[in-house]
């Protein structure tokens, strides 16, 4: 009888009923994975805030008068909701749109180009997506809150 060339391996860890708080937090999530889950999160945010988006579309377009109301919502607020609250929600939408937009273009690029589907490109394009969406959000947010 010949001996097996490789020594017996230690038993693999088995995961059953993965716990979101004790197991998921130990997983290493690469940048591409972060982009992927944030693509979902940003999509759901925009889905839930859709009535607010259409309200902005409505009040900003319907008439001169409603346009003034639209501007006033962000400057002085409406009812119990102060202006900064509207700006904060708009900022969340700005981030969600930017992230979803850039991550979506990354998807399209990867669908049409074989050279884009490599480990290196997946990493670098994911880092670019995260960086560009955050920098643009900060720049537009500073404008929104009147920092320049």
């Amino acid at each position, binding site marked *: 009888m010949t001996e097996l060339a490789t020594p017996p391996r230690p038993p693999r860890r088995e995961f059953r009923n993965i716990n979101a708080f004790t197991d998921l937090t130990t997983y290493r999530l690469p940048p591409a994975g972060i982009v992927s889950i944030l693509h*979902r999160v940003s999509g759901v945010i*925009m889905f839930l805030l859709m009535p607010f988006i259409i309200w902005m579309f409505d009040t*900003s377009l*319907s*008439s001169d008068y409603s346009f003034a109301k639209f501007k006033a919502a962000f400057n002085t607020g409406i009812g119990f909701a102060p202006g900064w609250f509207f700006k904060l929600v708009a900022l969340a939408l700005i981030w969600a749109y930017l992230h979803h937009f850039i991550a979506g273009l990354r998807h399209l690029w990867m*669908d049409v180009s074989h050279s884009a589907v490599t480990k290196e490109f997946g990493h670098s394009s994911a880092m670019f997506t995260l960086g560009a969406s955050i920098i643009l959000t900060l720049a537009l947010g500073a404008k929104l809150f009147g920092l320049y």
Partner: protein
Amino acid sequence: MSVNYGSKRIVVGAHYGLRDWLSQRITGALMALFTIILLAQLIFSRGPIGYDLWAGIFAAQWMKVLTFSVIVALLYHVWVGMRDVWMDYVQPVAIRLVLQVFTIVWLVGCAGWAIQVLWKI
């Protein structure tokens, strides 16, 4: 798909994977194009950005037609995306069905409102 019995019967999969994947790409590309066109009209405008400029952009008939198709594209894009989310995270069939019905009602309602706004201008 017209013949789905006998030896032609498809026994595996719902076969909407490719259609959904492709439609989400096409609708996404259309919305990205719309975003760029809208931004370009704002960036290359003259004078202050006020009501007249903003409403003027959407007053053009070609812009109305484009925006209308973007609303329809958005409706389908979000439906595919939200259905994916419910399928991945919500296993009980009853709750998933309720959420899917809510999604459809929410999206159709929003699309109707947006289209109404568009043709008020």
